[in-house]
Structure formats: C-alpha cells, structure tokens
C-alpha cells in the first residue's frame, strides 16, 4: 500500500510535479539511518520507516494546503527541515508523507530592530553570517551550524554563548504555525499585523507555549513555517574566515573578541569562577571544556583521537579542569581591558592559570562543531542535556558518570568524565550535557538501556531534564513532572490533531518503542494504556 493515488494527485496539484515524488529511490534517500544523531540504535531501527512520499512546498500557503489535504485523505506526515536531528524527525509509520521544507528559504533582516525573519530552510551559519555582517550575532545551537534555525530554535538553541544570549525561548519573536489540522496561527505582532514579525508575545496569553515545551515536540504539533529570531548586538570588527579545510577557522579581532583557556585547580573552582564572573557581569561565554573535546580538536583523524585518548585515565580526567572563557567588548575596546583584568583577578583568586589560547574560533560562532562528535566512534547521542542552575548541572553530570560504567561497553570508555557544564543567562542558570558514543557496528542494546535508565535516574534523583515529551516514554516521565504534564500535552495534541496524523505516534513514540522492542520490554516498570503504533 502506498499513498493513495487520489491523495497523491491532490498533493501534486499543490506543489507541481517537480516537487513531489513517491519514487522508491528518492524515498530511500530520506532514510533516517544507519548513520546520524541517535542512529543505529534501537529507536531508529524499530521506529523509523522510509517515507511513502516526499513533498517540497515553497510557501506557508502550500504547507497549509498540504496539511489539509493530509487531513482529508488521512495521510500521516512529518515536517523535515534538514533531517539532522536523527530518527525522531523522520517518518515513523508506513506510507507517511515527508514534508521537506528546504525550499522555504525566505529571509529578511532588520538589524536596526535586531531581528531576522527566516523560513524553515534557512540554516544557522547563513543567519549568523548575515547577522555578523551587520554587527549582530546569534547563538548557533550546539546541534551545529547546519541546523535549520527554526528547527533548532524549537528544540534546542543554546551554546556556550548562552551565558549572554540565554534561554532560547526568549529569542523567538513573531511566528507562523500551521496547526496539525491545517489552521494557521500567527503569534506575537503577526497576530494583528501579518507583515510585522518584530514582537513575540501575545496578544494576551502567549501561544508560543505551543512551540517548544523546553526541547520541542519534534513536529507533532504542527509545522512552523516562518519565525523571527532575535539578533543580539555584537561588536563592529570582522571575524575573518581563514585556512583551508579541514583547518578552517575564524580569526578573532582580539581587541574585541577573545577566547581564553584557563587550567583550574578543581571542579569547584570552575563553578566559583562562573559564579564570580556572573557576579561581576563580565564575559560573553564561559564553559567547562570536557577533555575529549580537546582530543577531538587536536586529532587529525579517528586514529589520532584514540592515540590521544588512550593516554588518559580516571586520574587524568578527574584532575583535568579546563575553563574556557569568551570575552566580547560590546561597547568599546576599553571594555576588553576592563573585563580581562577582572577575569584574571578572579582566576588568580581561585588558583587558576591562563594557557596560551589561539586567537581564533573553530567551534562556536559560525561552525558549532557538532559533526566532529562522530569522529571517534561513528555514533553519538546526548542522553541528557538540561538548563537549570549551576548547582543542578554539576551533580547531574556526576550522576550519569556513576551510572555509565554499567553500560560500558558498548559505550565508549571515558574514564568517568562527568560531562559538560557551563553558566547560562549571566549565572541565573546553568547547563549540563552528557554525551555518549559507542561503536555502532556491535550490539548496541546497552545504549538503548542507558538512554532510558537516565530518564529513570532523573526521576529518582529529582533532576530536571530536557528529555521529556517525545524524547522518553511519556507515561514514564509524565506522572513524575508537573505532575502529569503528559495529560495536558495529550489533551492539546488531541485537540489540534484529532486524526493523529501529524508525525504519529509522537509524542508517544518512545512509549511505542519500548513496547515494540523485545529487549526493551523488561525495562518497562510503569503504567500506561495501549500505545498507538506499538
């Protein structure tokens, strides 16, 4: 069975022959795995399917028509901007339509009012360059510069630069959302003036609440076709691209932008440094550097990485405390001198020492270096990442480090590295992320177990987590957070997607996975009703 002829014809009439295909070769090209974020794991193998068809709309109106046609003909569909996020942004059921949004590459920028309006096909490095040309900057989310800016703003949207540019939710302005039933809702200033995207709130209660839920609904509550994103003022000097692949980098104008690495005597001193910086209100970014990032940066190939990594030990990891600080002289050059002096004062008080640091950026301004995460093993997933406070961030990572040995192998040995943490929103928040790697060509069930185990651990230990909603079994996390956030989420989902055709069976996909995958079933120790798609 494929997408019915009738449905196909209706869809073809919307975009034209050239922009729709059900050809099996074309569809195979949209397979989720076997490589990619979270790929090769059980979820990807069990839950994803080749699309039944691909369609590429150009405008919001076309998207609306497509969604309405899907509703009429009961065709399940999933929105797809780059397909980068891995299995969770691919088709999950047979004969599903994949709505490839790459043709929607509309872009406008109003740097005077510090926002850019983008469509789903625009990626971060494009937006960042346009912003920087005009003396502004954005956060390129840790997902990488290849992310669709909209998709990442909906589900992620932070990096070490979030020390200043903070919570991604704050940076979403006027937005267009095509609801799962095909209705279009315009948010913020668009609600009353459908040409003006400059403001995000209202009117009245803020429907941007439907967009994210911390880290996104993976497209199961509609398709965002256009969004205005805040730009933040930067500084006037150019960051000059230089070098030839693979050693390309941005040369920093050091009187205005500077990274400095510091070795610190302890983890606690790093935390204190972040605290003191926030108190002094200096800095443009600050993060702990996990040691394996350094190994990746030094390695010329996979084997190099392992040469370097195999020199490490639990002791070396436990004693490695590298703090990386970004200073940005937003106002004038004197600000750099002022902040650097205070920074050095803080570091000296805490017993740290500056290291020679290249006056360049490879990783965070334009090229958030996420693709490099696959160098070591050919696989990667973050089993958790969460914005909370610094006091939450540190034990959160340490906790996973204790849990991880049980699942190593197949997880890559990391000698107890407790993950990455950094300061956010000028110290009001803290961030932690725990990244794992494994050899995808061996038995990977252990990774599936670990992934779910982290969710249970969070519940046991009362940690917050971004992996709620569609990312973990909803009936596991639901009762533990809110409580019962899942009941509201499902009510909203039922209201706007009564036919359950917008990216089914998300947000219940991980529940379905646990039911379907026989090696996962023993892990189910929570109640749930029958899960569609399981």
């Amino acid at each position: 069975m494929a997408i019915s002829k009738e449905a196909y014809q209706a869809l073809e009439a919307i975009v034209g022959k050239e922009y729709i295909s059900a050809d099996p070769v074309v569809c195979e090209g949209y397979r989720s795995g076997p490589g990619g974020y979270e790929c090769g794991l059980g979820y990807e193998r069990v839950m994803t399917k080749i699309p039944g068809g691909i369609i590429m709309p150009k405008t919001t109106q076309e998207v609306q028509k497509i969604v309405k046609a899907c509703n009429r003909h009961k065709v399940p569909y999933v929105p797809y901007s780059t397909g980068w996020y891995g299995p969770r942004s691919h088709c999950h059921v047979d004969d599903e339509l994949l709505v490839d949004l790459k043709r929607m590459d509309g872009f406008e920028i109003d740097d005077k009012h510090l926002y850019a309006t983008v469509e789903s096909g625009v990626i971060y490095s494009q937006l960042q360059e346009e912003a920087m040309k005009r003396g502004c900057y954005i956060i390129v989310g840790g997902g990488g510069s290849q992310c669709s800016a909209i998709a990442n703003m909906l589900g992620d949207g932070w990096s070490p630069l979030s020390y200043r540019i903070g919570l991604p939710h704050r940076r979403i302005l006027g937005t267009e959302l095509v609801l799962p039933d095909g209705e279009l809702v315009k948010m913020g200033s668009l609600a009353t003036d459908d040409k003006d995207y400059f403001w995000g709130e209202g009117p009245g209660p803020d429907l941007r609440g439907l967009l994210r839920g911390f880290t996104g609904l993976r497209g199961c509550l509609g398709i965002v076709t256009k969004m205005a994103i805040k730009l933040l003022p930067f500084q006037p000097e150019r960051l000059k691209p230089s070098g030839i692949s693979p050693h390309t980098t941005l040369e920093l104008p050091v009187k205005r932008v500077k990274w400095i690495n510091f070795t610190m005597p302890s983890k606690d001193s790093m935390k204190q440094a972040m605290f003191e910086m926030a108190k002094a209100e200096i800095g443009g970014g600050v993060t702990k550097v996990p040691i394996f990032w350094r190994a990746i940066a030094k390695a010329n190939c996979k084997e190099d990485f392992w040469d370097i990594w195999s020199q490490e030990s639990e002791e070396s990891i436990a004693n490695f405390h590298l703090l990386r600080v970004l200073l940005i002289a937003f106002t004038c050059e004197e600000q750099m001198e002022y902040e650097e002096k205070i920074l050095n004062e803080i570091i000296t008080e805490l017993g740290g020492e500056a290291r020679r640091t290249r006056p360049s950026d490879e990783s965070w301004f334009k090229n958030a270096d996420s693709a490099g995460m696959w160098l070591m093993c050919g696989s990667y997933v973050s089993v958790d990442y969460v914005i909370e406070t610094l006091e939450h961030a540190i034990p959160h990572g340490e906790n996973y480090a204790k849990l991880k040995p049980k699942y190593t192998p197949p997880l890559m040995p990391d000698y107890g590295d407790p993950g990455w943490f950094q300061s956010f929103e000028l110290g009001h928040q803290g961030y932690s992320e725990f990244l794992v790697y494994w050899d995808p060509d061996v038995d990977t069930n252990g990774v599936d177990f670990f992934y779910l185990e982290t969710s249970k651990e969070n519940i046991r230990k009362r940690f917050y987590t971004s992996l709620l909603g569609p990312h973990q079994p909803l009936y596991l996390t639901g009762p533990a957070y809110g409580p019962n956030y899942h009941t509201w989420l499902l009510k909203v989902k039922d209201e706007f997607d009564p036919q359950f055709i917008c990216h089914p069976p998300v947000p219940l996909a991980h529940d379905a996975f646990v039911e379907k995958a026989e090696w996962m079933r023993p892990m189910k120790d929570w109640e749930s009703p029958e899960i569609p798609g399981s």
Partner: protein
Amino acid sequence: MLKGKVKLDVTDLDNFEYDMSKCIKCKGCTWVDHIYMPGMTFSTRCPSATKYLFDSYGAYGKMRIGTAMLEGRMEYSDELLKILYACTLCGACDVGCKRNLDLEIELTLEALRIKAVKDGKGPMPQHKKVAQHIAEKHNRLGSPHANRNKWLPKDVKPAEKADVLYFVGCSAAYTSPEIAQATAKILKASKTPFMLMPDEWCCGNILYSVGMADEARELAKRNVEEVRKTGAKTLLLSCAEGYRMWKVDYPKLLNISTDELGFKVVHLVEFVDELIKNGSLKLKKKVNLRLTYHDSCSLSRLSEPWTPWEGERGEWGMVSPRLERRRGTNGVYQQPRDILQAIPGVELVEMIRMKENAFCCGAGRGTREAFPDFASWAAKERLQEVKAIEAKAIVATCPFCKENFAQAVSKDGEKIKVFDISEIILAAI
C-alpha cells in the same frame, strides 16, 4: 565491510560499506564550509543537491541509496541512474565531509558507478557513445584521430626528445585548440623544450568517471607505458580533468602510488608558477582586466596524489595501518592566483565560493554529455557569482570549464569573457 579487511578499491562497493553507513546527514557535503558561509546567497557547493533538491541527490541521499544497493534492496531504475550520474564528482562533498570525519565519499560515488556498470545498468547511453568514440577513434568526440595534432601552430616545433611531455588532451586538441596553442607558446617563450606523445590517445577521464573501470584501466596501462617509453620526466597538462586522471585515477586503477608512475604529473599553472618564481619567465605585458579565478575541481579539491591502501578496520571503526586521507587541503589553489597577481594590469577579485568551496562548472566527468541542461544550469549559477563581484572575465584551468562557461555566456547574452589561464599568461608574455 564494517569490520575486517578493507581496501581503498573502488571496484568493490563493499569496501565502502562503512563510509556509506556512517554518513550523519550533516549536509556539510552540500553547504559551503560554515566558517566561510557567505550568508543567504551562494551558500552551497554541491550542484546536484542544489539543482535537484531532493535529499537523494546529495551525498547523504546517495550514501543511503548505496547502502540499499549493497544490501540488494534497491532495484535499478531511470531515477536511480539519474541520481548516480547527474553529478560531476566534483569532490565538494568529499572535502566537506572530511572537514570533520574520515569518510570516503568521493570514492564511494565512484564505486557506485562502477557497480552500476558491472551490473549491466550503467553508464548512461550518452556515455556509451563516448566510450565507442574512444575505442574507435581514441578521442571522446569521435573526430578523426589523424587530426589530433592539427592544433599545432606553425611557429612551434615540439622536440623529438625532451624532459617535458605535453599531454594535450581531447578538448584542447579538437574543440579548444587555443588552449593547446597558448600552452605550446608559453613553453616556447620560456625556452622549455617539450615533446608530444608519439600517438596520443584519450586519457579516459570520462570512461573512468562513469564507472567503466576496466576500459579505463586498459587505457591507463597503455598510456602510462607510452609515456614511460618516451623517457619523459614530467608530464605536463593544461586540462584539469586530464591532470586528475593521470595523477590520481591512473595510479588508482593500476594500484600504484602517484610517485610510482615514473614521471611527475604537472599542470601548466604549477609549471609556470615555478618559472615565474625562479625568474625564468617574466610576465611584463599589461593585461588590463578585472577578472576572477574559478578553481577547476580536478585541479583543486581532487588533485592530491594517490597512494593505494589496504588494511583492517576494527574497534570503533579505526583502520590500520594508519591512513593519511586526502582531504583537499593541498590542492593546487595558490599557484594560479600567484600567476594572475604577477601580471601587470590584472585585477584579481575572488568569487564568494573559492578554493575548496568552489561551485563546480557542471561539465566534467561525463555530466555534460548526459545532462546538458544540468551542466548549463551549473555554469549559469557560477556566472551569477562573477556578476555579483562585478568581474569582467572568468579564468579557469580546464577546457571543460571554459567551454561550459562560454556556452552559458553566449546562450544568455552575458557580457562576461571566458578564458583559460594559458591565454592570459600568453597575453602577458
């Protein structure tokens, strides 16, 4: 082969199972290196993905399709062949991927075509015609073999024996003789004796590129032997495609390293750059032109020498022995620029996508023969960049590029001049 013995041998797709299965869909193969991302325009460097849009036409799509082919899950169809062949094998994907990872995308794409030919499904009908021409007349155009040296200007006499052998190539011999003539005159002006092949045959670039590896290998064996017989120390080319074929793909087909050919393979720009820097050639005549330089793919990204490799892949996907991967870093990027900047009156302005980020002209490696519209489209895309920087001329190092740009310019009535670098160098002597 995911673990165990593996070789960089394109005649067996199994050697690239690991590479295909580890593509992470970051699309670094399509986007310009993010560090160099120029913004909303000129953001991509894969012509296939940019024109055809469906993911299947980008390397990420092809890797997935390739996995399906290897696993016997994919039936051949017109669409599959189009996906495999509407691609210039320009190497942008390979370089883009290797910025971060160790995957052999270019070799995989070559291996997919070889498989298609082995399976009796490829290449495209137009390529089969080219193969027939080469077999019958030793040139890809089907022109009389006897006319191959007709390009020679009267005032240039090749030597009977010399250290330098100028390999002209089908394009310069038949369709772009001005390139061969300029090259010969440059050699004469620099007092460099050179010889020609006693009987020059097509280098087989299109044969290899479309997957006809056996035929290409036969040609390689023959051609290498013929050059060795001449005792030439240096094989000089003014065609980027031919250059790549001799320097990289001949050793690949013959399972030897570039060094083991027995002679150096050098492009005109490398040769002239050295002459200028050692004072043997002076470019004194003014050439008043605001021009831009187009990095022909085969001279730039794809031009690093070849070393055969075989070994084992084990834990975490590591290979042994250690493999020094060709990432496009040491391609011939700077020499042509240095030459142009040494010419008085020349104002060299760079296009937005340059060096390893260059956007392929769309013609090479069999693409124009089978997909002329695609080739024409790609050339026009590139010419938009020329206009964006207000250059009056575009200069390339390959007759494929020149012919394709020239055709696009004349079709659209553009006012951009199209040159091969040999013509500019000659004008400055």
